[in-house]
């Protein structure tokens, strides 16, 4: 098994179809196959052990990904928003490496020991015009395909290891080969260092669907590009959808009737945003996808029919499913377990465990986190309803321990979000002499809405136990999210504890 198999099949099935488009430039599946082969030859000749890309989305990303698979060098997409010293720290873990980056970064990175740095344009030009390597990629499914440094919202970044078997299993388990129509196009605005960005490349290639890349997300540009290329599919993180909704609200006709499928994930979607998006785009099929880097992307889906059924239902249990991440993929097993590792029944909160061929649970230079029988503790909290719909409760590491009582911030946030004046809420534990930790909340009010701290405290107290009532409530204009829509809890905690962030 090798990711190259996916591209080889695509180029033999539809070589002349456009595979990737970026601005005025594009690559067909045939051209991508050739470019990957030529870049593989160059990367091999360089003597590097990894092929890294430190860059926004560009045609160099799919070329780099498949050149990696072809040459047998793990692909390492790096976060270009990190500082120079952070980048050097990550780079030192993968040297000697062949690094593709933007022209303006070449000079400063060239001095880092063990890096062979090439500008994106040069890399692409050589890949297009160079001689292809022999189609001699390895088929050892255990080979490392990708190293992805996780976002590290709770600690120092570590590199998740995804082997060819994980990614190929994910694609074979979730995508039908060549299922896309020739006119289909997917708008991809997640960065290449995010698992969703990698998954989008692999699934689009296997389904034969053109990818339109949007390197730096901007909601107006997203809408323009979607119209210009009559985009049929897109994936966004919640913060992106919230901004897209704002843009569409102001237009009389969204002009996006061709947008058949819009999937989202990567963070908690506010219910108001998804409801509004469904109203603005009634023809569009919405899918909520939940997954982790360590699981090769999606493990749970809330599909279009389930969105509509939930939105239209009078039954509170069914309606609540709009805030769930759906059910596990057929190829994935999922359980909720307590602290002792015992499976919990429906309705009880615990840690989410998953098992399946796409699940890696492995980090570079560390022992596997998989249990002996293959189950992966995700460190995400959650609960299942009676029909197996999964509700996320935030990271286990974010659990607040007040006077020996464990509480999930997500549970309190959900209640706060039900208050008519609240637009967004973040609940964290802050140090407390008496209780060890105390509950604190940062609140964003809806435009024109008002609420006092005491009103929100009473709101929580009347709906949950009094121990869960935020001791401190502060109001904010907005909450801190990273560029892929993850709430930066450490920052909220630091602010509410009165520490310097």
């Amino acid at each position, binding site marked *: 098994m090798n990711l190259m198999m996916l591209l080889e099949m695509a180029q033999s099935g539809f070589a002349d179809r456009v595979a990737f488009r970026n601005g005025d430039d594009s690559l067909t599946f045939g051209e991508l196959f050739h470019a990957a082969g030529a870049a593989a030859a160059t990367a091999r000749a360089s003597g590097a052990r990894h092929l890294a890309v430190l860059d926004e989305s560009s045609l160099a990303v799919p070329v780099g990904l498949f050149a990696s698979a072809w040459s047998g060098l793990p692909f390492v997409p790096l976060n270009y928003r990190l500082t120079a010293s952070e980048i050097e720290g990550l780079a030192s873990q993968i040297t000697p490496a062949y690094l593709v980056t933007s022209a303006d970064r070449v000079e400063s990175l060239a001095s880092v020991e063990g890096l062979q740095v090439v500008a994106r344009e040069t890399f692409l030009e050589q890949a297009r015009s160079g001689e292809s390597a022999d189609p001699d990629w390895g*088929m050892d499914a255990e080979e490392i395909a990708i190293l992805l440094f996780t976002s590290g919202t709770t600690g120092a970044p570590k590199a998740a290891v995804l082997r060819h078997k994980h990614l190929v299993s994910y694609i074979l388990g979730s995508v039908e080969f060549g299922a896309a129509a020739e006119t289909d196009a997917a708008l991809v605005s997640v960065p290449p260092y995010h698992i969703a960005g990698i998954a989008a490349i692999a699934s689009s290639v296997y389904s034969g669907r053109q990818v339109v890349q949007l390197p730096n997300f901007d909601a107006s540009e997203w809408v323009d590009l979607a119209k210009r290329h009559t985009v049929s599919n897109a994936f966004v993180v919640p913060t992106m959808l919230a901004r897209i909704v704002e843009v569409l609200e102001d237009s009389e006709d969204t002009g996006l009737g061709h947008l058949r499928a819009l*999937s989202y994930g990567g963070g908690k979607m506010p219910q108001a945003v998804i409801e509004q998006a469904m109203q603005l785009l009634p023809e569009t099929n919405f899918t909520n996808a939940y997954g982790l880097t360590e699981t090769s992307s999606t493990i749970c889906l809330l599909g279009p029919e389930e969105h509509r059924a939930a939105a239209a239902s009078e039954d509170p249990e069914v309606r609540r499913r709009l805030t769930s991440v759906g059910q596990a993929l057929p190829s994935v097993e999922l359980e909720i377990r307590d602290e002792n590792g015992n499976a919990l029944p429906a309705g009880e909160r615990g840690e989410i465990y998953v098992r399946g061929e796409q699940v890696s649970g492995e980090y570079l230079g560390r022992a596997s986190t998989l249990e002996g029988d293959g189950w992966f503790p995700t460190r995400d909290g959650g609960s299942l309803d009676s029909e197996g719909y999964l509700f996320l409760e935030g990271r286990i590491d974010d659990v607040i321990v007040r006077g020996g009582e464990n509480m999930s911030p997500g549970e309190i946030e959900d209640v706060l979000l039900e208050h008519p004046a609240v637009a967004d809420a973040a609940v964290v534990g802050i140090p407390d002499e008496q209780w060890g930790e105390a509950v604190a909340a940062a609140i964003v009010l809806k435009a024109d809405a008002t609420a006092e701290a005491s009103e929100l405290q009473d709101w929580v107290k009347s709906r949950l136990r009094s121990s869960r009532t935020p001791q401190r409530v502060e109001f904010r204009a907005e909450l801190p999210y990273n560029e892929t829509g993850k709430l930066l809890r450490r920052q909220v905690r630091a602010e509410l504890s009165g520490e310097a962030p």
Partner: protein
Amino acid sequence: MPQFNAGTRIKSAVCSSELMVIAAPKSDIDLRCGGAAVIDMGADAAGEIDPQFKDGCALGKRYVSENGDVELLCTKPGEGSLSIGDVGLAIKEAKPLPSSD
């Protein structure tokens, strides 16, 4: 008769079909394409296609045995069709998942 491991690639001896094993039991299987036993990727093609097994392998389709314990993915199309002994494999009808990325 050989055993097949998931992830292994094989090809037809009598047509251009190439396949990847998705699932196979841990026992010997008389897997054929175009009526002739399938061969390793490095082996040389030989023999004639059996007209009884000429319905073809289609690129990207999955083929399963009756009880589902053998499953193959066609990675390169060809004229021959797949069988275990004389019993043909069927195309696996995939229940499409909504696109998630």
